[in-house]
């Protein structure tokens, strides 16, 4: 095989990395290059570009290599695929990261890899790249390393000290799907890897007996990804799995990735249009769990099918299914109750609470404060607004759902 150029490798190994949705670069320790080195991190993450698939580019997201000994049916890099293979040298990854970084194109590196030879070998090479960036080049930007389950604990321990974030993908929302579609992976091993990261993070937050703080372990936390639509799991089950992951491993994020056709596919999985609206609704539901005080089952129970309503957002769907809790009196309601009003975001609720201290909040005030009143109308009472029979009206859902396409009579 002829030696590939850096550009050819970059094309292959970024193409191979694009099915991982994670791109966050926020929430890590604050640091910058005024004390030496290059780079900064710790504020809000920055998305440096967007591609037409709606995903942001914050990090250089590449695989170290797309050679892989595993055979995961949903993955373009599985051993049974005929995709072109390439492998970066550690120096090449470091060079690409730093040169893109200096041109202000990225916040840092998100490095993943196919499994070559063994989990330890693969993880060891990834750790070496992170060490070169941090130690040899004083790189202060963001590093996200994919953790290989089954890798030796000392490699994961070093990875956590070098990287801002670690992640292991749960891949699929149900254990039997993982066993069936990713036969070399084991769901319990994946979860144990996440548990190890959580324990290491907690240990790094405790002061030692001398009062010193140990170095922070993966300060930007851990995340995971679930492919949606490659198996028959309902949204309700997916959200329950997410709730288990969030509570069990203190994940910062669960990413949902609509199963997308890949070149060189396998007969085990049909090529389908990626369920992008479903993915979007799951992200909304996930937000409701993390910031609005909803439990997975409450959201999942809103529709008897166990799937989210694709036509309306999950908060509205929940409100329509729980109308007895409405209308909410905006003048008096608790923060928790306000957060459940469709059309009110967390910032709107904060503003309402602040404004209430200065006098009654009226309809026009809510509009100014960012409430989406077209959505909130049936669910709130205000000094100058009463929904009357609207709250319990049978046609309420039709008000919000896009009109179904009319079948032609001819």
């Amino acid at each position, binding site marked *: 095989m002829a030696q590939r150029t850096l550009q050819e490798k*970059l*094309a292959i190994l*970024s193409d191979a990395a694009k*099915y991982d949705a994670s791109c966050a670069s926020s929430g890590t320790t604050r640091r*910058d*290059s005024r004390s030496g*080195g*290059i*780079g*900064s991190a710790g504020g*809000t993450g*920055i998305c440096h*570009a*967007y*591609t*037409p*698939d*709606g*995903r*942001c580019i914050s990090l250089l997201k590449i695989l170290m290599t797309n050679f892989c*000994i595993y055979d995961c049916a949903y993955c373009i890099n*599985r*051993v*049974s*695929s*005929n995709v072109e293979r390439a492998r970066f040298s550690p120096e090449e990854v470091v060079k690409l990261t730093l040169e*893109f970084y200096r*041109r*202000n194109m990225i916040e840092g590196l998100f490095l993943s890899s196919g499994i070559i030879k063994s989990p330890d070998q693969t993880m060891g090479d990834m750790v070496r790249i992170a060490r070169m960036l941090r130690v040899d080049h004083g790189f202060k930007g963001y590093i996200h390393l994919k953790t290989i389950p089954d890798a030796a604990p000392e490699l994961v321990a070093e990875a956590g000290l070098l990287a801002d974030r670690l992640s292991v993908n749960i891949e699929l929302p149900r*254990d039997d799907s993982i066993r069936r579609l990713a*036969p070399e992976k084991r*769901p*319990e091993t994946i*979860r*144990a890897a*996440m*548990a190890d990261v959580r*324990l290491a993070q907690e240990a790094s937050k405790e002061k030692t007996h001398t009062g010193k703080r140990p170095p922070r372990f993966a300060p930007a936390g851990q995340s995971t990804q679930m492919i949606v639509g490659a198996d028959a799991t309902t949204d309700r089950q997916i959200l329950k799995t997410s*709730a288990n992951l*969030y*509570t*069990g491993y203190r994940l910062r994020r669960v990413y949902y990735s*609509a199963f*997308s*056709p*890949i*070149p*060189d596919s*396998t007969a085990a999985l049909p*090529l389908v*249009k*990626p369920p*992008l609206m479903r993915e979007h609704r799951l992200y909304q539901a996930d937000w409701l769990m993390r910031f609005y*005080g909803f*439990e997975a089952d409450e959201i999942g129970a809103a529709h008897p099918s166990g799937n989210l309503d694709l036509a309306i957002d999950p908060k509205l769907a929940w409100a329509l299914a729980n109308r007895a809790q409405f209308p909410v009196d905006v003048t008096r309601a608790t923060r928790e109750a306000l957060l459940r009003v469709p059309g009110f975001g967390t910032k709107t609720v904060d503003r309402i609470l602040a404004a209430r*201290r*200065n006098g009654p909040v009226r309809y026009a*005030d809510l509009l*100014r*404060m960012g409430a989406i009143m077209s959505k909130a109308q049936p669910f709130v009472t205000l000094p100058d607004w009463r929904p009357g029979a609207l709250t319990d009206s049978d046609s309420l859902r039709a008000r919000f759902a896009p009109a179904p396409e009319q079948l032609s009579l001819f």
Partner: protein
Amino acid sequence: MIRVPLPRFGRFDAWRSAARQLASSRTAPEVVAWQTDDSAPDLFGAEPMPAAGDAPVTATKDFLDLARQVASHSDPERFALLYTALIRLQDQRGFLANPADPLTDRLSKMAKSVRRDIHKMHAFVRFHELPSDGLRRSFGAWFEPEHPILEAGTPFFAKRFADMDWLIATPEGIARFTGEAISYDPPAPRPDLPADASHGLWATYFANIFNPARIKTDAMRSEMPKKYWKNLPETQLIPDMLSDAPRRVQAMADAGASTAPARAARITAKIRPMPDDATPETLEQAAAQASHCTRCELCHAATQTVWGQGNPRTPLMIVGEAPGDQEDLQGKPFVGPAGQLLRQSMEKAGIDPSRAWLTNAVKHFRFTPRGKRRIHQTPDAGHVEACKWWLTQERGFIQPRLTLALGATAARALTGNAKPLTPRRGGIEPAFDGGDTLISWHPSLILRLRDDAKEQALHELQSDLARAAEMISPM
């Protein structure tokens, strides 16, 4: 009219000191014209700046933060609005905290627009490498922000790129950094930036990280508004990427499933875990099999099987209910708060925990997620029944002389008797496989009790442990 000229750079500080002086004599906002080079020239004659008055002028930190941001807005009225707000603030201290106030609303929207523009500057400036004759590498960029944010937006680059020289040219002016403070100069014509090979690699990356099967151009445009595109070379690729996407998706569909290369099956045969249903012949084999157990549904939510731990040649087996949160995470039995209480009590009774065998009747954690926590749930009869297979294996290999059953679940798993524990505690019952089972409290019960009840239960557990120590002596 009082005309107050504000310089191109250092404008906010100039406004601040002029505003303080004007406010000290409570000069009305209507008579002040704030002059920046982007505001219309004053047609009327100007009055001199009044001397400082003796009225106190105060401003909250929140106001100054807001004002600093609003000062970078392109609205010609921005300084007049800020001065109006400062005057109002003198006798209406809380108005900025009321989001329903129209002036607060307008100022916070202006500040938000400025913050967004600064954020987009941090995102969309693209440096090109410039020739350098010194030790430091040198880079330059051209950027066209929506607001005059050059001074507010550039300190970020000094922190991030301290080891290189850079300049950012904008229609408002030029920021230069050579390692010390950033210097600002009036605008010059747009510089010609040299070609840079890394930009070619960047285009390769941009084109290949795109998934043609997902088209969400609205999401792209809302976060990367078109007004910024002219200075982002990669956006020139977007029309071709979009027009080619349907063909690529169709090609994937037409190609259908592919034939695996011959090596694939050879490789996976070596590493694929094989189902192992044979009855285990050693304790280690049983543990390995149990780690993949799917006999009940608890394995889906729990992290891992928590197998017993300790000395397999012990005369004493201690059986609890099921792993808790910490046990589930660490994969070891009795390491959470209840486990620590048990271990302390064992040491007091003269039993070294590492010389006994500690395990649970059910080997997966049962919980329900609530908020940010996992709330422990007692396993039900079905879970106990499913897991009895493993308890039987464990007991078969260890063959303890005495088993200490902690709590109702363990007592039930070992004796089959589900009756209340209170009358049974401290007694010895035969286990399902014939061994002696001493019944005691589960330490987690003791942790939940209060006052006298707690003292008594702890005392009873302690005396049961002492009795166990006696029964197995010499261990």
